[in-house]
């Protein structure tokens, strides 16, 4: 329980919490730390900070302090790939990526956690690419002193299903690139897909180990897929032939190669004609023509997730719809924009 007393009465007692001082452009931090013994010289400084009264904490048996609560909450929230320092500041603990990877937020857990009174956790968006040490979330207990039971309940909720916040490493994939199209295959036009897609693959730490050019022929596309798999590719990107014209036969080639599931169409613009298929555990991504004309498309939303080991199916492609509309800005600022943030 908290007991209120004037700053003069508080002389000789220890502060129950940090007292923050903000001097714009100069300083923001604790002017007095929790546990500081209040002395006569502090009175003027405290009053300048607008503190005429202070709290003294007298914890009941079933109560805990905000700092202790924050530790319990941080532990419950943290899944794999999350590290945090057990040094709460003003009742808040920040959570950081322990390594490079893709942020995984269990949004149901997070919502359930935040539905518990007197606790909060705010995170970056799910599926954000993060670097080691990046701030990804912060949690705090809101009052200075609270009941232990709801804190433990919130932590228990957060820890369900391996924690609420995790970082999944993006693995390196031997990647096959199959570029389809009669016009490119016959040399009528120059291929521009290869440098674009190679750049995206290498940026994520993988490499193109197989490159094939094939015409709009489902049998030859099928053979190119089989060849890529035989050469050890664990991920295959196919470009061209993803539209609805009679010559667009890439999907047929993928089906002919024995894909166990084919999901054609993503709730993303650009990228509506994006395709995800699987042959055993090898993902095949069909990249529509927008991949040439837009810096960021459905591929950029899905590729890191695939590389983190996530299985992308109909549900995942459908859920991209919320936030899946690119604003086509004059200067693209992705990932610092709403595109792909709703899934």
């Amino acid at each position, binding site marked *: 329980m908290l007991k209120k007393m004037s700053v003069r009465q508080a002389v000789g007692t220890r502060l129950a919490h940090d007292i923050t001082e903000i001097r714009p452009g100069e300083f923001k931090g604790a002017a007095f730390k929790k546990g500081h013994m209040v002395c006569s010289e502090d009175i003027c400084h405290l009053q300048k900070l607008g503190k005429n009264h202070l709290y003294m904490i007298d914890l009941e048996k*079933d109560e805990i302090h905000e700092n202790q609560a924050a530790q319990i909450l941080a532990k419950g929230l943290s899944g794999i790939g999350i590290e945090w320092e057990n040094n709460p500041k003003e009742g808040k603990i920040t959570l950081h990526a322990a390594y490079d990877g893709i942020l995984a937020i269990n*949004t*149901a857990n997070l*919502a*359930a956690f935040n*539905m518990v009174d007197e606790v909060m956790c705010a995170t970056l968006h799910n599926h954000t690419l993060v670097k080691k040490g990046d701030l990804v979330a912060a949690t705090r207990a809101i009052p200075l002193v609270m009941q*232990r*039971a709801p804190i*433990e*309940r919130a*932590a*228990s*909720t957060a*820890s*369900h*299903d391996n924690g609420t916040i995790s970082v999944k490493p993006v693995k390196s994939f031997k990647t096959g690139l199959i570029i389809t199209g009669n016009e490119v295959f016959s040399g009528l036009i120059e291929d521009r897909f290869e440098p674009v897609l190679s750049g995206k693959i290498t940026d994520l730490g993988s490499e193109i180990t197989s490159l094939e050019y094939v015409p709009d022929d489902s049998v030859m596309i099928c053979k190119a897929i089989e060849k890529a798999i035989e050469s050890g590719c664990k991920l295959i990107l196919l470009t061209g032939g993803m539209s609805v014209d009679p010559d667009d036969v890439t999907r047929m080639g993928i089906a002919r190669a024995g894909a166990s599931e084919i999901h054609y169409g993503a709730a993303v613009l650009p990228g509506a004609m994006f395709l995800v298929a699987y042959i055993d555990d090898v993902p095949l991504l069909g990249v529509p023509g927008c991949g040439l004309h837009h810096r960021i498309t459905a591929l950029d939303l899905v590729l890191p997730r695939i590389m983190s080991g996530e299985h992308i199916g109909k*549900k995942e492609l459908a*859920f991209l719809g919320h936030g899946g509309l690119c604003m086509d800005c004059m200067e693209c600022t992705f990932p610092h924009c709403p595109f792909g943030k709703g899934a």
Partner: protein
Amino acid sequence: MDSGPIKIRLRAVNSKSLAGVIYKIMQNFETLLKSSALAHGHLCPGQVVGVRMAMLGCRLIGLDDPKSHGQIKKLIVFIEMDRCAGDAVAHVTGVKLGRRSLKFMDYGIMAATFVNLETHRAFRVISTEESRDLASLYASEIMDKSVRQISAYKRMPDSVLFRVQKVNVNLDKFDMPGPTQKKVTCIKCGQVVRDNREVIINDQPVCRPCTGKAYFYMPREVT
């Protein structure tokens, strides 16, 4: 049997310990849900909540097979709602009005209290209101509201679906299972009243209907 009320101590429950415990011995959840829905008449979100509430409640008081011969007399359940979940709780635990192991408390609250008569431990399990709001997140791929709730309530951890209180329960000897403890005759109508349910007026036992506070009115004999 001691004639005084049974004292059950109150202590805060560590809810964190709830989520990590695995349903080990009780029947498989899906099996219980199927049989409960069959007995109730349909499968609905309340059935899922009730079956899970009963499984959690029994686990908390240390009963892993409440319908078994060795445990059926150790359990009393207070059910605070006459809704689908109430039937599920009764079905899973095997408590019955006629066995005096089911006590209906007409509170209109989605909650039930599970009492172990042997250890005197009692826990009140309350269905949370926020679980309804969270259903769309736990089963976001399902369009139909009822189907979504059924699926979501299966997926939610206990700490989201329920709050748990460790409670004291006073059980009078006249509330206990077993043979009738007492019979008296109403001095107004001659009706026999069992187990201390009579009302004493002017030092004389009177049955409830004769006090004029019955749930029915104007009784007329037809047979």
